[in-house]
């Protein structure tokens, strides 16, 4: 068994060596989870990601450079994610960018990315403090972090109540997945709670989240004014069913974007009516130009990755947007390092740091009405801090709020403080302006 394995590894090494000479195609690795407890949410994301990359190839590649895509199943397990990362990072001349889609794997890869010189995009998830590009050179939480999401949610309920001063004395409960992912928003919510005088009740739910009876009993006793849901996978639908059983009004429940997609609510159907979730800009976008293009150019040719009906759903769009950001970063990098040429991970990193997606560019890509401009810099690796709230009407998600912007006055100091602590723990010195130019 071992001999065979060694032989296989030797074979792969030989293939890798021959491909090393001059890569012609840009390699985008994928770390999805199509199996396990979180598969219902992981699958549409991965389908969107892969379909959009296929669409880019159908459009003629990135200035002529075609894309290779290869997946390695992680099952949301950190050790398997690390194995997959090691497996894929050197293939096809070197990986361009990794999108781990798991907070646990993001934490592990954050330590590896600077060594291997491969950027990490964590669009909407991962470490919130990695927004600070001066400390986190290789992390890109593009278009939103959990702190931004939490901040927008607080703003949304303040708006509903009629101003921040009305939040005083209110009770807010956070029902969260008991993992680094679920704990991310706590720091920001505590900050906001101190600012506006509302109380915050923390209710952790153990992985995978199917056992929530005790949590909802506590909610029934405490009767919080609002419940924030920071769940993932089966935990979301379970929470909504429990809310229905305890009679907690769904209109007063707000989820993070991981808790606001079709797989979370469709089992509950009518029971989830009125439930809200924050979206990192986009919701379900079946009418958008890019979805129509994918349907004709990818699914129309029988090359679609998943079922056709799911194209344009919330998580599918999330995958497509993540892929778009990854591709556009490479396009930006090509403008500096040579148009129509293959770029290294290091060059792609420059592209992600100098991303400037204007509304015109987004419209041309088919994302009109889906998202707002994104512009990153050395200090800000997030690029945009807008969000909207959408509400489940029993059959589909529909937007129920205007564009909301996270408050930098609240976020920035927190990001700075936490990033500085990370830098101190790791004995890193922040990047100098000269390093930003490179």
């Amino acid at each position, binding site marked *: 068994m071992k001999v065979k394995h060694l032989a296989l590894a030797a074979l792969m090494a030989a293939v890798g060596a021959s491909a090393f000479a001059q890569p012609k195609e840009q390699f985008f690795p994928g770390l999805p989870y199509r199996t396990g407890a979180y598969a219902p949410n992981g699958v549409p994301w*991965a389908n969107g990601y892969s379909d959009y990359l296929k669409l880019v190839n159908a459009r003629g590649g990135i200035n002529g450079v075609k894309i290779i895509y290869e997946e*390695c199943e992680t099952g949301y397990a950190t050790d398997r994610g690390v194995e997959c990362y090691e497996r894929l990072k050197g293939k096809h001349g070197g990986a361009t960018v990794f999108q781990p889609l798991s907070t646990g794997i993001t934490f592990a890869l954050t330590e590896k990315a600077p060594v291997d010189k491969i950027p990490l995009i964590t669009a909407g998830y991962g470490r919130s403090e990695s927004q600070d590009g001066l400390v986190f050179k290789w992390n890109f939480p593009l278009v939103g972090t959990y702190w931004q999401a939490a901040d927008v949610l607080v703003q949304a309920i303040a708006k509903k109540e009629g101003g921040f001063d009305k939040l005083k004395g209110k009770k807010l409960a956070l029902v969260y997945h008991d993992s680094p992912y679920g704990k991310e928003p706590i720091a920001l919510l505590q900050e906001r709670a101190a600012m506006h005088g509302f109380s915050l009740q923390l209710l952790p739910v153990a992985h995978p989240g199917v056992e929530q009876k005790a949590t909802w009993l506590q909610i029934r006793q405490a009767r919080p004014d609002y419940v924030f849901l920071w769940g993932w996978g089966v935990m979301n639908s379970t929470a909504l069913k429990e809310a229905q059983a305890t009679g907690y009004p769904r209109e007063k429940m707000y989820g993070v974007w991981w808790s606001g997609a079709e797989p979370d609510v469709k089992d509950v159907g009518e029971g989830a009516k009125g439930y809200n979730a924050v979206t990192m800009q986009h919701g379900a976008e079946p009418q958008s130009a890019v979805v129509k293009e994918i349907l004709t150019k990818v699914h129309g040719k029988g090359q679609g990755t998943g079922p056709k009906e799911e194209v344009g759903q919330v998580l599918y769009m999330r995958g497509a947007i993540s892929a778009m950001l990854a591709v556009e970063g490479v396009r930006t990098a090509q403008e500096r390092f040579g148009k129509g040429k293959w770029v290294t991970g290091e060059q792609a990193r420059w592209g992600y740091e100098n991303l400037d997606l204007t509304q015109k560019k987004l419209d041309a890509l088919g994302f009109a009405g889906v998202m707002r401009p994104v512009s990153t810099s050395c200090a800000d690796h997030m690029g945009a801090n807008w969000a909207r709230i959408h509400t489940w009407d029993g059959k589909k998600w529909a937007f129920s709020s205007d564009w909301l912007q996270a408050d930098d006055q609240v976020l920035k100091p927190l990001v700075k403080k936490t990033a500085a602590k990370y830098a101190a723990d790791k004995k890193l010195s922040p990047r100098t302006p000269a390093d930003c130019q490179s």
Partner: protein
Amino acid sequence: MFYRENGQFKTSYRADQQIFGITQDRVAVLLLVAAAFLVVPVITSEYMFRAILIPFVIMSLAALGVNILVGYCGQISLGSGAFMAVGAYAAFNFFVRVQGMPLLLALLLGGVCAAAFGILFGLPSLRVKGLYLAVATLAAQFFSDWMFLRIKWFTNDAPSGSVQVSDLQVFGIPIASPISKYLFCLTILVVMALGAKNLVRSAIGREWMAIRDMDVAAAVIGIRPMYAKLTAFAVSSFIIGVAGAMWGFVHLSAWEPAAFSVDISFKLLFMVIIGGMGSIMGSFFGAAFIVVLPIFLNQFLPFVGSLVGVEISTSGISHAELIIFGALIVWFLIVEPHGLAKLWSTGKQKLRLWPFPH
């Protein structure tokens, strides 16, 4: 024909009691260890190091620890993941909070904390046995999950409960490149495996085995069950704790409590059962089976698929991997209930007689 001890006479007690009684065995094992230290670093790719060899070496060490408790002393434990977690977080706290703490000392102190934790959760073993003890040790698992998720002090007040280490070095040599990490882990493994092997051959090891085989009879002939059981818990948890600290420090370098979930406990127990209970060698076989085989299947299946011109989807591979892996476990347990180590020793026995059947 070649593998035979004919003509090798033992003329001293020392020669009679050595670990490998047959010269060929001794030479083969020494060559294997030498190859692991000298040849493997030269021929292996970075991927093999980071994704296969380092996890394999660390998990072998952990399986070795579990084998002492489960295989030698007969105390079924489902708390191994917890002992690993305690080792990892204790080492982390020593490493981060004490200025200038050397890595090696931090790892060993992590092991010591895990040993103390192991003794504490080994106390029920004085009253309950078998499956009941397995359930009691499961409490250790849940307790550690709770402890590292809830008590912020243990995670150095990290907002999300995830911790990371950097700047690892031993005697001024940085442990950063895959080769240095591998050699570091391998050195610890060899030293600990040698120590464990000698321990189970000594008086205390015989006490453990006596307790395993029949604790009442062992007590009658003068073995103190409390002492024997708790030392087994302590030694086993120490080794598992060091392995856990290495898993966090060397392999993952950033981890969360979920990295040491109950899954790890089960996996370690499976390693011991499949590898062979009460066999140091079996720990290595078991670790190889559980760590390497799924990854091998995951890469081998698409290869097979491409040979016959079929492209298997990612989820298809992943499901097939689980099915084949599960089927193999069942098959091995039916064919050889004493584990892979038993197959190994049967093979050696056959080789001794070869080419004659009797």
